[in-house]
């Protein structure tokens, strides 16, 4: 395994490879730090650029974007109390008070170092557990795969957003949109309503870019008061003693493990992990009352867990071909666009790419800490670009991204259609992530179902009697049942509260 990793490094450490990682990290940091632009958006826009590259070069760029995008969020979180990405929400709790107490440099120092350390731990765990897990998954047939996909979809649908039917609905709509065009196995054209341009179905890129970038621009258009960001970065000292670092060791380790675990579970990524890690740090602290007033513990917890979620989220993607969140769904799209077959076979057939991904992550992590320390002032300047100028330019990039894959103007139309859909879904309170996962996993689901039925000659029983498949289907029902139960409990508590309130008034 070690020699594989070394050859992975060898394939990445070319001038081109390093430049791509550096470019990816910088662009990721910029997108991560500007509120309204996200890591997901950066990857969606850059996917088409990777077309002309070899898969390894393309992955190097995407990994740089991923690490940079998650890390960049800490800059506005600490300076402006605005999380640049959902991954840094909890960083604002203590990071901003620290900056107000005149300790912005210290807060940055802790945030950057714990981002690096959290990321490092999770990448090492990823390298250790993904390959063996992939080997186990090699024995899976269509029955097991069908069950795993159902499990992943239901878990993601039930966990994102607060309404179970809405989450499931979003997942189902995603599967539905993926059905437009020719059917798997027999290629029968479906839902084209006679339109020739629909025969090939919707391409992945317009769907992704539309849902995550265009919808964001529309949401931005409706805000009456635009955020005007002005920051003063003079007189900032980064000094932190080694003793203070060591004092955070256990906090760092616990938060990283939380991030890692949350990352591995499909459906909940960095956005959830930082808040959970913050809560855990507060609950186990000897001075919980100090949290929120600007102590480093909160910053360390949040930032180490969100970077640790990166390695975690890549575990199911690389070993099973199942993405856990939107960013990994986009990375899956990147693998597919390069003609690689995601899933357990990826490690067997394209082991070089997998180990290059591992190596690129480690290299990107180093560049991330380097650029954050050296280029902090530059990234802070980026924050003052007004959104009304930035957003239209970003849209230009989105159009190129959607058009580039197939060279059809139809795809630009599809881009705007999915942008509007994404906007309406946000407005009506539907989560977007399940839709993307449904769109990507839907065809796989159907293919495995029909392949399985061919194997069993039309018998549905093997889907239930194969032990691994059965376990995953039980998990599926358990996760939906749990969501129903917790929703019911919440409602009951709410009703009780309302009742008590009315009692008190009388």
């Amino acid at each position, binding site marked *: 395994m070690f020699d594989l990793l070394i050859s992975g490094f060898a394939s990445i450490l070319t001038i081109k490879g390093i430049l791509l990682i550096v470019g990816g990290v910088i662009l990721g940091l910029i997108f991560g730090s500007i509120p309204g632009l996200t890591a997901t958006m950066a990857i969606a826009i850059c996917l*088409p*650029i990777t*077309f*002309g590259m070899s898969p390894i070069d393309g992955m190097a760029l995407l990994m740089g974007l991923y690490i940079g995008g998650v890390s960049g969020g800490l800059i506005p979180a600490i300076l402006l109390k605005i999380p640049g990405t959902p991954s840094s929400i909890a960083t604002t709790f203590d990071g901003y008070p620290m900056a107000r107490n005149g300790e912005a440099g210290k807060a940055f120092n802790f945030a950057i170092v714990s981002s690096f350390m959290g990321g490092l731990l999770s990448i090492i765990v990823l390298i250790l557990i993904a390959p063996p897990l992939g080997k186990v998954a090699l024995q899976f047939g269509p029955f097991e795969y069908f069950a795993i996909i159902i499990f992943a979809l239901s878990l993601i649908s039930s966990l994102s957003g607060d*309404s*179970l*039917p*809405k989450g*499931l*609905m979003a997942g*189902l*709509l995603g*599967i*539905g949109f993926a*059905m437009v065009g020719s059917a798997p*196995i*027999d290629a*029968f054209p*479906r*839902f084209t309503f006679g339109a020739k341009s629909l025969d090939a179905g919707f391409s992945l890129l317009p769907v992704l870019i539309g849902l995550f970038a265009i919808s964001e*621009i*529309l949401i*931005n*258009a*409706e*805000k*009456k*008061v*635009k955020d005007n960001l002005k920051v003063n970065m003079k007189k900032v000292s980064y000094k932190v003693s080694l003793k203070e670092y060591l004092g955070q060791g256990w906090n760092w380790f616990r938060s990283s493990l939380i991030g890692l675990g949350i990352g591995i579970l499909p459906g909940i990524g960095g956005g959830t992990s930082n808040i959970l890690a913050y809560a855990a740090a507060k609950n186990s602290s000897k001075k919980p009352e100090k949290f929120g007033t600007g102590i480093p513990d909160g910053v360390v917890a949040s930032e180490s867990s969100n970077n640790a979620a990166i390695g975690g989220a890549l575990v199911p993607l690389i070993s099973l071909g199942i993405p856990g969140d939107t960013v990994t769904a986009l990375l899956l799209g990147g693998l597919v666009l390069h003609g690689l077959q995601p899933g357990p076979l990826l490690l067997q057939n394209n082991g070089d790419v997998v180990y290059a991904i591992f190596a690129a992550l480690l290299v990107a992590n180093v560049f991330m800490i380097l650029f954050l320390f050296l280029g902090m002032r530059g990234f802070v300047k980026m924050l003052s670009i007004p*959104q*009304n*100028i930035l*957003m*239209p*330019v970003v*849209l*230009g*990039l989105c*159009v*190129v991204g959607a*058009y*580039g894959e197939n*060279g059809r*103007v139809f795809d*630009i*139309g599809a881009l*705007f259609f999915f*942008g*509007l859909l994404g*906007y309406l879904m946000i*407005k*009506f*309170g*539907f989560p977007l992530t399940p839709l993307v996962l449904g769109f990507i996993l839907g065809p796989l689901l*159907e293919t495995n*179902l029909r392949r399985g*039925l061919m194997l069993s000659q*039309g018998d549905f029983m093997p889907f239930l009697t194969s032990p691994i498949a059965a376990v995953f289907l039980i998990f599926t029902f358990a996760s939906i049942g749990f969501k129903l139960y917790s929703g019911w409990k919440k409602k009951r508590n709410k009703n009780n509260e*309302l009742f008590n309130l*009315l009692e008190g008034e009388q």
Partner: protein
Amino acid sequence: MIPKIRDVQSGIFLLIVSVIMFSATLSFKKLTTSLVGPAFMPQVIAGLIALMALAIIIQGIRNVKAERVKEASSDVVTKKDPKDEVTYRPVILTFILMAVYVAVMPFVGFLITTAVYMFIQMMILSDKPERRWLLFAVVSVVASATIYYVFRNVFYVMLPSGLL
């Protein structure tokens, strides 16, 4: 409260979608001998969408009722933060602009359409006193020209060049 009624509206809309989806599957033909043809999954999905739509409608109606009870019991008017206030005019204008953009692109080409689009979009997104004509025009032209040439010559993505 408006947000809760929205659940009912979206539920009804999605219910209609599922009915259209299901009726479209009836014309799918089976091309293989296997029991499950191309129509099976779409029918299952359409059925599940209908089921979820019903759940959303029921949940929505319940919430609307609960809201009414709450509103009747308390008459505190919550003040809105100006940051959360929204106007739909720019959104609608933006979407019309996008539609025109797609329609015009094949004839005029990427470069000019995108430059004009960016300029108008910046005007839509800015309030009247913030409209800096010259800056917007320069940024639009420079940005779209940069995107065009970088993608054409560095990444070899062919963009519609139009009549020019």
